[in-house]
C-alpha cells in the first residue's frame, strides 16, 4: 500500500457500504460471470471448439478422446499434487525425476525380483512418500527454499534412476499394471445399440449415468443445506442450467468412450483423485491451512497453523502422487526407462499456472490445474492432428502459459488488490 492512487481515494470516500468493484466480471442477461475464476473453463471450451473445427471433428472422435486422457494422465496426476504445492507458495522441480526413480523401482520389484504387483506397488508408493518426506524435511523444517531443494532433488533422483537402470530400460510389466496404465474396463454387461452411433458398452454408460445422478444429488443437497442456513444461492434456472451442462458433458464423454473401448482405468483413477483432492482442498482443515499459508504465511503462523507440518505433508503427498504417475507411465510404455519423466515437472507447473494458480501462492483449484493440464493436452493433440511440427507446438504452449499468467496478473491489478 505504498502508493496511493486517486482510484483508492475515491473508493475510500464512498465509504464501506457500497459493493466492492469486481474486476473482470461481466454480466450476460442476469448471469454474471467472474472472468478470473471461470475464464479458464471458457478458454478450454474455445480451444476444444477451435481444434474440433480445424481437425474436421477428428478431435472429438472416440479413440482420440481416449488417447488424450491416457497419454496425459500422469501429467494430470502430477498437476493435482503440484497445485497444492503452489497454493502453499512453494514449487517442486523434482517430480519428473521422482517419476523416473519410482518407475524404475517398481520395475526392479515387479520384473527383476518378481514380487506380487500389489506389494510392489505399495512399496513404490511408500518410497514416493519417503522421497517427499526427504524434500519436505529440508524445505519445511530446515528452511531451504523449495526451488533449491527440489532442483537438487531433480538431479539426485535422476542420478539414482541412472544408477539403478544403467543405460537400459526394465520391462515388461505384469498385465495388471499395464491394464491400469493403458487398459480399459471390462464390458461386464455387453454392448447396447445406440442407433446411429453404433454399439456402446453398457457398463461404461451405467457408470456415466451413476456419476451424473451422484453429481445432481450432491449439488442439490449442498444447495438445500445452504438455503437452510439462509445463504443466498443461485437462481433455480441457473442451477438447472449448470447441472444440465455438466450432465451433457459427462454423457458426451462417456458415450464416446463407450463406443470405443470402454472407460480407461486411468480415467477412473483420475476421477477419484480429482474428487478426493478437491474435497480435501476445500472442505478439510488441512486443505484450508494450505490456502492460509499461501495467502499470508505470517498470519497463518499467528493463527495457530502448524505451518511446518502442513508444508511437510504437502511434499509427502507430492511424492506419493509422483510415484503413482511413475508406475502408470512405466506401465504404459511397458518399460521403466532412464529418461522417463523428463520435463514432466514443467508440464505440471504449467498446468497449475494455466489453471489459475497465483505466482505468490494462496490461490488455485485442483479442477483448475486439471483444466490447465487438459488445455495443454488438447493443444498438443490437436496440433499434431493437423500436422504441426513439434517446435510450433512448444511455441504455442509457451505463449499460452505466458498469456494465462499475464491475464491473472492483469485482473489482479485492475482489482487494485495492492499487497
Amino acid at each position, binding site marked *: *500500500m505504498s502508493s*496511493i492512487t486517486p482510484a*483508492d*481515494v475515491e473508493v*475510500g*470516500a464512498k*465509504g*464501506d*457500504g457500497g*459493493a*466492492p468493484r469486481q474486476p473482470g466480471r461481466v454480466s450476460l442477461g442476469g448471469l454474471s460471470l467472474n472472468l478470473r475464476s471461470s475464464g479458464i473453463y471458457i478458454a478450454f471450451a474455445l480451444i476444444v471448439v477451435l481444434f474440433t473445427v480445424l481437425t474436421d471433428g477428428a478431435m472429438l472422435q472416440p479413440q482420440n478422446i481416449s488417447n488424450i486422457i491416457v497419454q496425459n494422465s500422469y501429467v494430470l496426476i502430477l498437476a493435482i499434487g503440484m497445485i497444492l504445492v503452489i497454493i502453499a507458495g512453494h514449487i517442486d522441480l523434482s517430480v519428473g525425476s521422482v517419476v523416473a526413480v519410482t518407475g524404475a523401482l517398481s520395475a526392479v520389484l515387479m520384473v527383476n525380483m518378481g514380487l506380487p504387483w500389489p506389494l510392489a506397488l505399495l512399496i513404490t508408493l511408500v518410497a514416493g512418500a519417503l522421497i517427499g518426506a526427504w524434500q519436505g524435511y529440508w524445505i519445511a523444517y530446515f528452511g531451504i527454499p523449495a526451488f533449491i531443494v527440489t532442483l537438487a532433488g531433480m538431479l539426485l533422483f535422476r542420478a539414482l534412476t541412472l544408477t539403478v537402470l544403467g543405460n537400459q530400460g526394465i520391462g515388461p510389466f505384469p498385465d495388471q499394471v499395464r491394464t491400469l496404465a493403458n487398459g480399459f474396463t471390462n464390458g461386464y454387461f455387453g454392448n447396447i445399440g445406440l442407433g446411429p452411433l453404433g454399439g456402446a458398452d453398457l457398463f461404461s454408460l451405467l457408470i456415466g449415468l451413476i456419476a451424473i445422478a451422484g453429481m445432481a444429488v450432491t449439488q442439490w443437497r449442498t444447495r438445500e*443445506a*445452504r438455503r*437452510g*442456513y*439462509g*445463504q*443466498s444461492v443461485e437462481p433455480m434456472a441457473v442451477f438447472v442450467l449448470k447441472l444440465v451442462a455438466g450432465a451433457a458433458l459427462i454423457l458426451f464423454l462417456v458415450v464416446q468412450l463407450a463406443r470405443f473401448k470402454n472407460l480407461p482405468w486411468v480415467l477412473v483413477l483420475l476421477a477419484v483423485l480429482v474428487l478426493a483432492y478437491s474435497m480435501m482442498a*476445500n*472442505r*478439510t*482443515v*488441512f486443505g*484450508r*491451512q494450505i*490456502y*492460509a499459508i499461501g*495467502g*499470508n504465511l*505470517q*498470519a*497463518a*503462523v*499467528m*493463527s*495457530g*497453523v*502448524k505451518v511446518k507440518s502442513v508444508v511437510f505433508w504437502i511434499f509427502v503427498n507430492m511424492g506419493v502422487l509422483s510415484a503413482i504417475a511413475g508406475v502408470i507411465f512405466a506401465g504404459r510404455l511397458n518399460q521403466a526407462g532412464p529418461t522417463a519423466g523428463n520435463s514432466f515437472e514443467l508440464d505440471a507447473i504449467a498446468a497449475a499456472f494455466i489453471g489459475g494458480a*497465483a505466482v505468490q501462492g*494462496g*490461490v488455485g483449484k485442483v479442477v483448475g490445474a486439471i483444466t490447465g493440464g487438459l488445455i495443454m493436452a488438447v493443444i498438443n493433440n490437436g496440433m499434431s492432428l493437423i500436422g504441426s511440427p513439434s517446435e510450433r507446438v512448444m511455441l504455442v504452449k509457451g505463449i499460452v502459459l505466458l498469456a494465462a499468467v499475464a491475464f491473472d496478473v492483469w485482473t489482479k491489478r485492475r482489482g*487494485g*488488490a495492492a*499487497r
Partner: protein
Amino acid sequence: MTEHILRMSGITKTFPGVKALQDVNLTVRRGEIHAICGENGAGKSTLMKVLSGVYPFGDYEGEITFEGQKCEFGGIRDSEHAGIVIIHQELALSPQLSIAENIFLGNERARRGWIDWNRTNYEAGALMKRVGLRENPTTMIADLGVGKQQLVEIAKALAKEVKLLILDEPTAALNDDDSAHLLDLLRGLRDEGITCVIISHKLNEVIAIADSVTIIRDGRTIESLDMAADHVTEDRIISGMVGRALDNRFPPHESKIGTEALRVEDWTVYSPSQPGRKVVDGADLMLRRGEIVGLAGLMGAGRTELAMSLFGRTYGVHISGKVFKDGKPIEIRNVQDAIRHGIAYATEDRKRYGLNLIEDIKRNISAAGLHGLSRRGWVNENEEYRVAEEFHRSMNIKAPSVNSVVGKLSGGNQQKVVLSKWILTEPDVLILDEPTRGIDVGAKYEIYTIINRLADQGKAVLVISSELPELLGLCDRIYTLSEGRITGEVPRREATQESLMHLMTKGQE
C-alpha cells in the same frame, strides 16, 4: 548562534481522510542540536519525510527554506544534494557489504565507472575515525552491533558532506554505553558545525543534549523552546506532549472484575537479531477476568515483543519466566498451545500478521478457530457461514456479504474481522495490540464498545496502545513499560497522562 539554517513554515500534509500535519512550523538554528518531541503518531516522522523529500514538493503545502534558499525537493537525492541527511530508526545498511562499501553506497568513489578501492577504503577509514569507529573498513556490516552500525550511518552521512543531520530515534535500539557514545559524537559534530535534528522519546537524553526543542502534538506545532532560556525540564516537555483534553470518545463502562485469569512472572525475552540485548526484562503482569488492563509504552519499549513472546513464543529467543492461567502454571511453546489455553492475540499489524487479504471474510474469521467448526478434519462449511454471518451482524462489519474479500475492507472493518477471528476461538484472555491503529474515530468507538462487551463476558483484556487518552478512557488499570521493564502499575483513578508519561520515559538507572 542566531542564524537559521532551516525554516519550515505552514507545513500541511494530508493523507486520504487524515490530516497528518497541520500548519507545522520548525526553525532550526545553525550549529545547534534541535530535538523534536511528541507522542507516537503526532507527526514527527511525517514532518521529517517532508523535509527529506520522501514526500516530494507539491505533495504537501507550506514552505521550506534551507540555507536561505527556498527548497522544492523532488526526492531524497535532492535533499541529500542540498546537505540534508536523514538516518531512520530502521537502519538502511546492506548487511552483506563492507563498512566502506556502505559508507559510499550510491556515492561511490569511482573513476569512469570503476571503483577506486584504495581511495574508498582510505576515505572510509578517515570518516570512521571521525565518528570513533575502530574497525577495519572491509569488515562486513553483519558482523557489527547496532551501535556500530549507527556510527556507520553517520559516517555515511558525513561522506555526503552533510550540513543538517536528522536522526530518528537514534538510541532506541542502543544500550546505555552505545547511547552515551552516540550523544558524545553528536556534541562533537555540533562543534564541527554540523546541525542536528534529533527525534527522541528519551526525554532525559533530550534534556542532556539538545539546545532547543520543538513539541508536536496531533500534527500541530505546540511550542518551540530554548533549553537554556526557557529552563526546560522533562515535566515541561511532557505537559506539552500530552496536553489534550479528554472528551466523550469512549462508551461509558463499569467493569465487574473477577478472579485472576493470567499471571506472568519475571518474563524476560532476548532480541533474536541482537544477541545479548534484553527486549523484555523481568516483567510481571496480572490480568483478572472482566478487567480491561492497559499496557503503555513508547515505541521500542518492548510492548509488542512482550505480547508476542507470550503468545506462543512468536517473538524473541531465550525466553524465560512463568505463566499462570487461572492460578495454574502453564507452558506455552507455540501458538497452538496459546490458543488451547484460551489466549488470543490480535496483532498491531493487521495486514502482515492478522489477515489473509486475498481470502474472504468468512475464511478469515474461521482461520484460527477452524477446529471448532470441523469434525474429524472436515470443515462444516454451512456452520462456518452461519458463524461468520453472526459476526458480520454483531460486529457490524460493513461489507455486502461474508464472501467479500478482506483486502477491500476499510481498516476499521478489517480490525473487526481480526477481532471476530479471535473471539471465535473462545479465549479467556485477549491481548489487543494497537486495536485502533489506522482507524477513523467512528470505528474506534465501535471497537471500544466491543472491548467493553468482551470484558462484560468475563474475559480478561490487555490493551496495548500508544495513545494515552485511549488507555485512560478504556482501561481499569494501566501498566507502563519502559525499555523492556514494567516501570509502573496505575489504577485508572490515579492515572493521568503526565504521570504515565513520566513512567514511560523513566530511564534505566
